[in-house]
């Protein structure tokens, strides 16, 4: 007797709906076992991870702050991935956006520049992110270079460029030679939404981006084009859709969103440009995009959920002295189950009863 995976004739709608729930259920069961092995009370630990952060406004704000860049980048990436364009370099576009926007902040520092500074920073950051993303897109369309490799490699270029700027020309003159710009002026800072908190305007912008993406994909011809080119390239060609044009477009849009996320992070929670402004947002957003099934609303939920695990992980570390590694194991297990359960959408388990003699012969 053998257990095999068999391809389904068509994708199972029911499984597609309940698969994330199964995955979360399995994750919780696994974590309960893990907590028990570590000698921690599993119920208290799960409470610290999932419930405690949802019970006070401070933690809710922090979840929104953490999710903002992830959601914004992931929305852009989902457009790329739906159109079969593999942008892996959102991290680089994030950094270039941060650098370009910071340029205005640094140059207007200490002057009486007006309220135009922040809007100009946002626009320039989005434009720079888009241009930076166009490099791999054009290389792909014109020369057939793998956009996966080129976009990824450009991450390191952006990282080193930022490094050079904050160690050299943009270094804070009062900063004892440490690699950081001076704190941005108030006009170059993303406004806070709640006095004393950290929730900022960026979270609202992220919600707009989610809504816009939902409308684009659900209600417009362009959105239809993106989905057809990705799902059925041959049909798209017959339909007269230009796949190359879409690669350029989706890369530019996702680059712009990553760049925007970059400047919002720098001009918001960080407050100045320095190395290490991104704890890998551009890469984590890839996970968020797939966890949200490349669907705008799904991405919003996935982004918030991943942010919850970060905040909850910290609170578990403080309240129950659960090591950080357990949080990482937890995130890994979650992704593993999500991907494993997703395979059930296209495949099903089947028991196979082979011929006994053959079976005894081979075993």
């Amino acid at each position, binding site marked *: 007797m053998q257990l095999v995976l068999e391809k389904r004739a068509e994708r199972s709608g029911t499984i597609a709906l309940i698969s994330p729930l199964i995955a979360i259920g399995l994750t919780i069961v696994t974590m309960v076992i893990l907590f028990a092995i570590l000698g921690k009370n599993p119920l208290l630990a799960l409470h610290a991870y999932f419930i405690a952060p949802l019970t006070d406004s401070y933690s809710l704000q922090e979840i929104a702050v953490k999710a903002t860049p992830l959601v914004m980048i992931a929305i852009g990436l989902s457009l790329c991935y739906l159109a079969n364009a593999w942008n892996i370099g959102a991290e680089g576009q994030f950094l270039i956006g941060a650098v370009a926007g910071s340029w205005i902040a640094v140059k207007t520092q200490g002057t009486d520049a007006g309220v135009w500074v922040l809007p100009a920073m946002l626009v320039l950051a989005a434009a720079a992110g888009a241009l930076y993303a166009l490099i791999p897109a054009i290389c792909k369309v014109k020369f057939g270079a793998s956009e996966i490799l080129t976009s990824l490699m450009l991450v390191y270029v952006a990282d080193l460029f930022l490094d050079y700027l904050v*160690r050299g020309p943009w270094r804070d003159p009062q900063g*004892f030679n440490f*690699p950081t710009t001076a704190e941005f002026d108030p006009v170059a800072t993303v406004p806070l939404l709640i006095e004393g908190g950290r929730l900022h305007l960026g979270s609202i912008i992220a919600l707009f981006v989610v809504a816009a993406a939902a409308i684009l994909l659900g209600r417009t011809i362009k959105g239809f084009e993106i989905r057809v080119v990705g799902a059925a390239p041959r049909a798209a060609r017959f339909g007269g859709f230009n796949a190359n044009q879409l690669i350029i477009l989706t890369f530019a849009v996702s680059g712009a969103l990553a760049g925007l996320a970059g400047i919002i*992070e720098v001009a918001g929670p960080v407050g100045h440009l320095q190395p290490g*402004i991104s704890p890998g947002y551009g890469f984590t957003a890839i996970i968020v995009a797939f966890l949200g099934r490349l669907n705008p609303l799904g991405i919003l939920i996935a982004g918030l959920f991943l942010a919850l695990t970060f905040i909850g992980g910290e609170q578990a570390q403080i309240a129950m002295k659960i090591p950080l590694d357990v949080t990482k194991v937890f995130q890994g297990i979650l992704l593993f189950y999500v991907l494993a359960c997703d395979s059930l959408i296209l495949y099903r388990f089947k028991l196979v009863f082979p011929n006994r003699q053959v079976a005894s012969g081979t075993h």
Partner: protein
Amino acid sequence: MRKSLRALAAGLLLAGSVSAASAADKLKVGFIYLGPIGDLGWTYQHDLGRQALVKELGDKIETTYLENVPEGPDAERAIEQLVRAGNKLIFTTSFGYMDPTLKVAKKYPNVHFEHATGYKRDKNMSTYSAKWYQGRYIQGLIAAKMSKSGVLGYIGSFPIPEVVSGINATILAAQTINPNIKVKIIWANTWFDPGKEADAAKALIDQGADVIMQHTDSPAAMQIASERGKLAFGQDSEMIKFGPKTQLTSILDTWGPYYIERVKAELAGTWKSEDTWGGLDSHMFAMAPYTNMPDDVKKIAEDAQAAITAGKLHPFKCPVIGQDGKEVECKGGANLADGQILGMNFYVKGIDDKLPGK
């Protein structure tokens, strides 16, 4: 029946409030760590300091730490989480936490903060650091004595004043023994990356260096030096087990006494915002045993250590000649002023290399 129930309830309540009171009486002390506590370097040493604190004052305090906190947008949240969990004294143990610590400090004026290696302070935010350049001076003496090729290899992390002053102190010391000493410098642009650090060590040895020194945190360079039969200095922590025939000494970060002193002040209600920059005399760091060297070199090292501790020897004794051949303005009387060392942005004469960003 009713009465006894009520008495029981009252008793329970009382017991509850008593235990709550004793828990509340304990001062909560928080730590933010840059790396994992098992990095065997910077964070490991801070955690040893925390453990020393618990050993000394464990009945009066409760400690909590968050490890692997990146020096970016997450740092402010991590610090605030510790505040919200009731910590009244919080140590943030890396330079990059400076601005986040300041922001949280302004928001919670009744909580005290201690930031390592930074320069921004507030009414409720102290800074603390160590005069590691004193240890570098001793290493420079040993290196010049032990090097046969007359070429030292130096793995820099970032060209910030702490690291630059370390290089300068090393060379000034080495020149007192061998005026023609050469130093090759490689900037790893990281504090902790064993792969890069190992590559840097290999490159330095290939360029003729036979004594390797580092301002990065992993034992990788020590292992490479050991494989190639060269000598090396450890960093932050005791690394002798990675090079039993290789390690000459190591600058050991010993934060325990400082942590104990500050927490005692907090308990006594005498904590004030201060700028602490301690040297060998105040035990902010220590030198690992002098090993793998002849007795006369050991004696030179020990004498220098005693002289620095007693305040008789200053690594940056004037005149200090800059790389451009001009004398550096002497703002501290007989020695360079502390501010000049804390902001050091130049190489001294004899370093055949260009300071990045200059």
